[in-house]
């Protein structure tokens, strides 16, 4: 496929066939990741900056591993000790990175729109690894890829996204991706954790977890940030766990073979019952494995786009 995009900022940039291509390619890389020798030379000589202004372990490690398995050189830039902490503007940090001529910058930042801010200013590819509450397209792609490995099709499937949708970039990107692929999407959260004007989203909105999970084929639990309670959006964590935490009883009316997912890191016993995280229908560790394969795919597509289009 002729990859026409310079940057990956949000799912809506992609077409269903491009997403399908990502999944097909990721399946091949997933196979590479099962080999004794996992390194392939396709991005040899390419350099990727991992610019994680906001703390991240799994996403950053996943990108790092993806880059290294393709033989790209990866360079990390974290907020602590970086120039951002010394008061340098995002623009100057970006221009400084650009001057070092990397082939791609993977950015995680606390402000919505930060990835686009870089993409509008820099010539190299920008991969959004999470910007504020806005988008986390690589997470959505790995969620979709994970489900594509267990489902023949997304048509006719129903997915419930449970938890703090308002402040979740994962939820926004998952809604875009899953609806684009033909799944029906539900969101379930206390009203204080639903985004403004959620009625304009292509989703069904629930406040009761049991009802939200009736007839679903997968549940994606979202991490609850503990500061939401301090912000007055929740009474307390015990109340949240008892009312909105996913428990086995909520899944009694789910479709047979319902899958449990979580983007991590999990608060066990808060948004998800521990036994569900570990049960046979949990895909949580499959998501982590898929993350590496999907990010290998994305680095491959975005870093070789000029050769493809030439």
């Amino acid at each position: 496929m002729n990859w026409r995009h310079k940057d990956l900022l949000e799912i809506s940039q992609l077409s269903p066939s491009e997403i399908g291509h990502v999944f097909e390619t990721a399946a091949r890389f997933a196979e590479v990741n099962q080999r004794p020798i996992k390194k392939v030379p396709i991005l040899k000589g390419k350099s990727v900056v991992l610019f994680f202004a906001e703390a991240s372990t799994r996403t950053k490690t996943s990108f790092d591993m993806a880059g290294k398995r393709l033989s790209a050189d990866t360079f990390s830039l974290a907020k602590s000790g970086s120039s951002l902490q010394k008061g340098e503007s995002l623009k100057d940090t970006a221009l400084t990175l650009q001057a070092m001529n990397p082939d791609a910058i993977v950015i995680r930042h606390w402000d919505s729109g930060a990835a686009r801010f870089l993409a509008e200013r820099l010539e190299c590819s920008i991969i959004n690894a999470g910007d504020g509450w806005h988008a986390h397209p690589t997470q959505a792609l790995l969620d979709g890829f994970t489900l594509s490995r267990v489902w023949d099709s997304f048509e006719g499937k129903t997915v419930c996204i449970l938890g703090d949708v308002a402040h979740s970039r994962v939820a926004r990107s998952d809604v875009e991706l899953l609806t684009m692929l033909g799944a029906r999407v539900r969101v379930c959260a206390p009203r204080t954790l639903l985004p403004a004007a959620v009625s304009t989203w292509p989703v069904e909105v629930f406040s009761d977890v049991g009802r939200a999970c009736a007839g679903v084929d997968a549940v994606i639990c979202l991490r609850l940030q503990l500061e939401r309670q301090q912000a007055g959006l929740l009474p307390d964590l015990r109340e949240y766990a008892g009312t909105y935490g996913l428990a086995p009883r909520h899944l009694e009316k789910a479709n047979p073979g319902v899958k449990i997912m979580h983007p991590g890191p999990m608060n066990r016993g808060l948004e998800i019952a521990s036994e569900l995280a570990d049960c046979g229908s949990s895909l949580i560790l499959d998501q982590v494995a898929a993350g590496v394969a999907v990010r290998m795919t994305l680095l491959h597509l975005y870093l070789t786009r000029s050769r493809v289009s030439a």
Partner: protein
Amino acid sequence: MAHVDLLIRNVSWQGRDCDLLVGDGKVVELVDAGAVQASGARVVDGGGLMLLPSLIDAHVHLREPGQEYKEDIASGLSAAAGGGFGQVMAMANTSPVNDNASVTRLMLQKAALAFPKGPWVRPVGALTVGLAGKELAPAGELARAGCVALSNDGVPVENTELFRRAMEYAADFGLKVIDHCEDPWLGRGGVMNEGEISGRLGLKGVPSVSEAMQVARDILLASYLNLPIHLAHISCRESVELIARAKERGVPVTAETCPHYLLWDETRVGNYDTSVRVNPPLRTRDDVLALRQAVRTGVIDILVTDHAPHAAHEKEVTFADAPNGISGLDTALSLTYELVRSGELDFADVARLWCWRTADIFGLPANRMQPGDPADFVLFDPDLAWVASAEALLSKGKNTPCLDKEVPGRVMAHYLGGEEVFSR
């Protein structure tokens, strides 16, 4: 006939071809074109341009003292002169805050030095010391030094008891209180209108009721105290409805809005365009329509720019990090003319909204084209479109969504007291 020393020939006043006769800095008469020969007077050919009274902007931020890298009084007044504004009411959120006579005098002196013949700065004093909302600022001292109103603009007074006392105290000096209406808690930290777009972009929203709640508070206080209040930069339908009802009941409330609220809605945020980050935020299409209706009917009395210049690098950040504000003096009349062109307003509305009613509210001089009025006027070319490039904008603040876009209508000359203060 009184002495005539300046004759502006061939101008269009509200659809009529006219000559304007000026003597000793005042309007002598506005007559039909060619009706009068004024021997000995200097004659200027108006070339058929549109005549407007010099405008008054009741809400600008000139940034001096303290933030001269954004704007200074000289650059702000130069944008005012070129934008058609003869008087600008400068808000108090300078550094130091304009809460005492020495800051007021400094502003007036700087203005007189830069533009001795005008445009004029009309300072707005702080309502509370340091805008901190704790103690009343010395209204008497501020009035004597030249302040024409008081406001805590940008930092609304949370303490309603103090706000009530400030209204009462200011009234004794004939100073109107201008209130920036924003609930201190509801939507705190929000960066755009709360709604579909904020939800999609993942930005914290400010609901329109945050403004309307304080509008309601102010109306209730104004009604209870029978004291006037002027409501700054109204942005939403709920506020318009409250003001309309209050005016029907005779509450002494007046209100302003800005061209950007009449022209643009929240969709202009697009993909995090910081040039439209402004407080209050751009609202919905429905709010835009309510505001247009309100300025036509007079529910909203006047237009202001809320001219808020910033340095380019300050807006070249993420949306959440960007300061609020649009630089407005250079383009306000062009943007208003867009509304005239689309039939939303006519030129009589422009004179009322940008000059006459403003002068009524704040007790300022204005040219109503009557004999004896100050000969403060603008010659405006409605057919000349121009590109609002960084070079074309006279303000230091290039932070406008119009930057590098074509806008219609251009001020060609600006006279104050019968003297040309600007021409292009």
